[in-house]
């Protein structure tokens, strides 16, 4: 991990979900960046990273699609860092980096497709892909954040939910599990660190990296509902008011299956589903609307009003 690198200005890859259901994540990420003096320059004319769906059809196509985004950021825009807040995009760019470094067959397909599509082939090693968590942790850090908190999250009990794609499989995240300061794939803690710095009480949540069934949210909804219900009930059990999220697919999956568990199984759960960037925004004194709290399905706006944060 290159701590020294200046992350004040990075290429920003929002991805498709942040233009749709994850709108509030995009909004709050940009707003927090602006407030903290961090420049996010959107990758020009980006395309979908391939997501899980294209990977299922053919993993090498997903590698190519992700490589095009990194090629634009490095070759056309001259950046050495791409920040992707969506776990899926982040995972896929990392996976493409790994595949293009280690697998000649993948390289051949990406070369051929890039050439035919008429853009430079991505050269592995040209950019480092980071998550929004890495970005805030490395560019600002807990101490930096503490100094700027105007509305402490004191009294909020938060369960941090990281999901699958942020840590698994480990081989595509060579910078993780590298001792002090690095992220852990078994017990990730970057979100805990940041939200604790913002004053929140972090509960010991056992399902941090359990799966929400996002892959089959619509194609096998009953399984997804079961998996999400586990996450929600565990959060209630830990007495958490909020499940903090860092991925648009997890976030909307939790929102959606919270309702589905209620309407289909009669199981009502209480945790509010909120993006971690929204929480940091509120702690920085930003308006609830600016960070898109009104877009959250689990009615967190009334909750934050009660707590004097909105």
């Amino acid at each position, binding site marked *: 991990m290159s701590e020294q690198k200046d992350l004040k200005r990075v290429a920003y890859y929002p991805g*498709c*979900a942040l*233009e*749709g*259901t994850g*709108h509030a994540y995009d909004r709050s990420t940009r707003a927090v960046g602006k407030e903290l003096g961090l420049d996010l320059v959107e990758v020009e*004319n*980006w*395309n*979908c990273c*391939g*997501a*899980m*769906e*294209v990977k*299922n*059809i*053919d*993993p*090498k*196509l997903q590698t*190519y*699609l992700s490589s*095009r985004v990194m090629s634009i950021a490095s070759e056309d825009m001259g950046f050495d860092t791409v920040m992707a807040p969506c776990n899926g995009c982040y995972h896929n760019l990392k996976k493409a980096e790994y595949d293009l470094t280690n697998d000649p067959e993948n390289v051949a*397909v990406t070369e*051929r*497709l890039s050439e*035919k*599509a008429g853009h430079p082939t991505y050269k592995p090693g040209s950019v480092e892909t980071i998550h929004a968590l890495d970005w805030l942790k490395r560019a600002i850090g807990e101490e930096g954040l503490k100094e700027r908190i105007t509305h402490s999250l004191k009294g909020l009990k938060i369960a941090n939910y990281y999901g*699958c*794609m942020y840590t*698994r*499989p*480990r*081989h595509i995240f060579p910078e993780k599990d590298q001792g002090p300061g690095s992220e852990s*794939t078994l017990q990730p803690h970057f979100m805990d660190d940041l939200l604790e710095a913002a004053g929140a009480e972090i509960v010991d949540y056992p399902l941090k990296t359990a*799966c929400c*069934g*996002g*892959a*089959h949210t*619509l*194609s*096998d909804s009953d*399984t*997804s509902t*079961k*998996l999400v219900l586990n996450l929600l009930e565990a959060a209630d059990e830990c007495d958490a008011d909020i499940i903090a999220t860092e991925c648009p697919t997890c976030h909307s999956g939790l*929102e*959606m299956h919270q*309702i589905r568990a*209620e*309407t*289909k199984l009669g199981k009502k759960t209480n945790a509010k589903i909120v993006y971690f960037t929204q929480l940091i925004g509120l702690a920085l004194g930003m308006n609830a*609307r600016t960070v898109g709290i009104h*877009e959250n*399905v*689990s*009615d967190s*706006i009334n909750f934050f009003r009660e707590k004097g944060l909105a």
Partner: protein
Amino acid sequence: MPIHEQNLIRPENIITNEELEIDGIDVSGHWSTFIESRVVTDYNEDIEDEVAALPGGEYINRCWQCGSCTNSCTVNAVNPDFNPRFWIYLVRMGMESELLRDKDIIWQCVSCNKCTYSCPRDVNPEGVMKALSHWLELKGHTPKSPSMHFDEEFADQVFSTGKIEEGRVIRGFFQRTGQPLIQDWLVELVKRLIRHMPVKLLMTMGLANFVRPRTRDWGRAQAAIEEYVLERDAANRKALGLDAAGDH
């Protein structure tokens, strides 16, 4: 404690005679319980190579049957019949008919990669599950799974415009699978979603349904991808001994 991971004795093979006398001795009930022997005669030696030829299945031969994948599996926890270790065993042994007993649940893998994380042999069991689902569909053992319909709808949009628009993917998926778009819980979701939404945002979101997001100058990439997909499909079918012309 019994071995709970996979029981090879199927309930239908356990025979008990309620009324039975042998040599004048009454052995009715559980005294006469016996297990019908399990006979497998239809080995299909090609399955392993075929699965290994499909994307994701490449490293199936590395498996040493430790069971870490099944032990960590998300879906196994909610359905004990979902057993990646066992299926890899059956594929490698060529036990086709045994494998086909579970054909309708293999696609349910949620790609959480817990198996890939814990596999000591870098088999990439998650990939094997995808390859196996493809294999079942290509061979005609199962119809296209809902997941495959979703992937195809999604991928078609990416291939043709460079991006997806979620509302369009959802509508397309419901159409492909013949489900009504109006589902009670979806209606409830939308109701709660718009409760606090400003009109301007709602209009922008509505607009996305008409103005398709797309990557500029995507045409050449689209052509290159489509050419590649056709080639891959033909190669996959060939590896499985099927005619080159699929119905993709």
